[in-house]
């Protein structure tokens, strides 16, 4: 199958995809679930299709109808996939939500989950018996029309044929930029999901053309409620079709070697993950855990969902090259939920690119290349940092960089990243506000284009993405209000995206008579970790009045970060008679210069000067 054929999706809806995948060889194509002991359970696509049809019948029997929002709070398991696709089978809309974090605070979890259920006006929530026992408090905050139900037993339904739906019907809702008070439900149609899934599959086929019915296999530990797991892994497996090996996220975090062993054992060719996962492998995987493993089959090690670090990419290559890992396998990519997932890709089979840019210029919005020695390192005296390219737009996608006035900027100018393409959402579910205008999506991210490549440098929207989790900055800021010595309402949480990835910075203003700075910083860290589960990388303690604010008094987080990076985040001058007098003089002098300039201009134009 060539690229041209794939450019137009060959399926119209997700049930069509399931039907086609079900016709594949059951011995070769399907899902493989690994348990804690790494034992596989095989679910061929043909059997999967039968289970989806039976589950669809059971959903129907329980009162679920077309257009209903079917929420799922389930771990990685066959039931998740069966209910997800069964909902689509009968024209309902699946909404995947995350299960509670282990040893985490449940009060926040209940609040957040209820807010998401409310945002989509969920008709029913399916979960398992373990999680279900603690979801009572969530249900007390928002009770779906059909209640909270157990996933087990749904397979007992009589099989149904899929209902006919339009490719433009909503196929699923996935949450993006979610915060407790303002979760954003991204509504995606069948056509949008398939457009993105097809582009990803096309990229895989470009590197590894399927031959003799042999489709490249995927391996994933990514959560299925996350776009990178759901779209990035499931869609190519079903569209290909091809085998997909699934590991639970918690097993990966506890024992990252499982991921690499699965790739080697099942000859995985494609496996994506965020930057932190690659760093975790470098830190935690021991040689003896990979004894006999050959990673040369891994051709597409996609890296996305959070800022990338060149140091991490190099460390990963250096660390695992002796196990056959290829230096042309790492693929930095960029995407977001509002675009379904993928927007830019590093070209498969080519080595990832990075470039050094002058730090001071970047702080002013200009990407000026740094002074680089022949070996690519910074020259002596050069003050540049290394940035990893996220690649170029996928076929039929486009990127623009715009300033705050919506003017398109030239290459090497930093601005807001806008994306356009066949999988960009039309809007959020049930909301009138949308970041899409004229087909262009305001991603809320900052970046620039250099030599046709996208570089992501920061985030304009008020959301932090920390180790794959979205955090609202105001929630982190509120957490330090209780720390003695901190001025209430005078903190700013920002993500500093740099050459080493994303760091969480917290600017806090202290009262004039604040105690020990180091102790105060430690107390701030502890307060944020306790309240939000986020580890602050650096606490920057500031004098009162230092944080820049809008005319209405809101803290300007992005400006605070920019000033701090430029070394210009300074406390305001003390006001006394002398400084006030100086300011008045400077102001008067300014008016005078302005008036003289105005008169000169009129004189040059030949106007009569009165």
């Amino acid at each position, binding site marked *: 199958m060539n690229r041209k054929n794939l450019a137009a999706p060959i399926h119209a809806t997700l049930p069509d995809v399931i039907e086609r995948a079900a016709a594949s060889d059951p011995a070769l194509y399907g899902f493989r679930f690994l348990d804690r002991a790494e034992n596989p359970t095989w679910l061929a696509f043909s059997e999967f299709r039968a289970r989806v049809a039976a589950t669809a019948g059971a959903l129907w029997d329980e009162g679920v109808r077309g257009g209903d929002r079917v929420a799922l709070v389930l771990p990685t398991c066959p039931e998740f996939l069966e209910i997800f696709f069964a909902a689509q089978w009968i024209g309902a809309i699946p909404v995947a939500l995350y299960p509670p974090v*282990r040893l985490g605070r449940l009060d926040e979890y209940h609040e957040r989950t209820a807010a998401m259920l409310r945002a989509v006006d969920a008709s029913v929530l399916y979960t398992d018996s373990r999680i279900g026992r603690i979801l009572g408090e969530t249900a007390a905050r928002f009770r779906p029309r059909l209640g909270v139900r157990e996933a087990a037993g749904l397979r007992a339904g009589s099989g149904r044929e899929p209902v006919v739906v339009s490719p433009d019907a909503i196929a699923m809702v996935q949450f993006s930029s979610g915060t407790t008070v303002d979760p954003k439900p991204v509504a995606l149609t069948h056509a949008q999901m398939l457009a993105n899934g097809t582009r990803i599959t096309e990229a895989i086929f470009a590197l590894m053309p399927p031959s003799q019915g042999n489709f490249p296999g995927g391996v994933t530990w990514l959560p299925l409620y996350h776009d990178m797991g759901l779209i990035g892994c499931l869609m190519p497996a079903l569209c290909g079709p091809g085998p997909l090996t699934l590991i639970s996220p*918690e097993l990966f975090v506890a*024992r990252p070697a499982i991921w690499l062993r699965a790739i080697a054992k099942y000859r995985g060719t494609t496996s994506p993950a965020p930057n932190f996962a690659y760093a975790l492998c470098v*830190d935690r995987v021991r040689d003896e855990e990979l004894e006999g493993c050959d990673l040369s089959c891994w051709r597409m090690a996609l890296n996305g969902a959070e800022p990338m670090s060149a140091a991490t990419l190099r460390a990963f290559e250096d660390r695992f090259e002796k196990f056959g890992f290829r230096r042309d396998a790492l693929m930095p990519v960029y995407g977001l939920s509002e675009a379904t997932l993928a927007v830019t890709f590093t070209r498969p089979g080519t080595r990832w690119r990075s470039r050094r840019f002058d730090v001071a210029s970047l702080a002013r919005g200009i990407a000026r290349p740094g002074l680089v020695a022949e070996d690519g390192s910074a020259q002596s005296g050069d003050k540049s940092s290394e940035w990893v390219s996220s690649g170029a737009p996928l076929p039929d996608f486009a990127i623009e960089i715009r300033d705050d006035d919506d003017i398109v900027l030239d290459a090497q100018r930093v601005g807001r990243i806008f994306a356009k393409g066949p999988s960009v959402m039309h809007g959020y579910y049930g909301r009138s506000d949308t970041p899409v205008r004229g087909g262009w999506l305001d991603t809320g991210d900052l970046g620039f284009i250099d030599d046709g490549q996208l570089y992501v440098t920061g985030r304009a929207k008020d959301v932090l993405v920390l180790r794959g989790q979205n955090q609202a900055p105001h929630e982190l800021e509120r957490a330090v209000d209780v720390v003695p010595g901190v001025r209430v309402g005078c903190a700013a949480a920002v993500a500093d995206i740099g050459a080493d990835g994303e760091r969480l910075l917290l600017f806090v203003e202290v009262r004039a008579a604040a105690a020990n700075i180091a102790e105060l910083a430690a107390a701030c860290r502890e307060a944020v*970790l306790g309240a939000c589960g986020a580890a602050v990388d650096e606490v920057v303690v500031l004098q009162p009045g230092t944080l820049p604010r809008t005319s209405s008094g809101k803290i300007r987080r992005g400006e605070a970060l920019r000033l701090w990076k430029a070394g210009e985040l300074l406390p305001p001058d003390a006001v006394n008679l002398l400084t006030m007098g100086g300011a008045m003089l400077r102001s008067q002098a300014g008016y005078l210069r302005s008036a003289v300039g105005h008169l000169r201009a009129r004189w040059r134009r030949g106007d009569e000067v009165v």
Partner: protein
Amino acid sequence: MEFSEVREVVAAIARDEANWKGPLPDGPLDRHLDSIQRLALVVAIEDRFEICFDPEDEQRIRSVDDLVAGILTKLGERA
């Protein structure tokens, strides 16, 4: 196993699997370990002791001592 023995094992797991440096914290776990560290810790503990915490059990675990007590309860149930 005694409380102190289990605590020693938890300390070793926290150091080796959850990248925790220094003695175990006295206060609430979520004030000292981020979500990834807590996840790595609890899964490694379940593997090591061959137990499985339910979400309800975890609701009662706030500190290291609660965690140790929870492990002992699970071991007792198994015996």
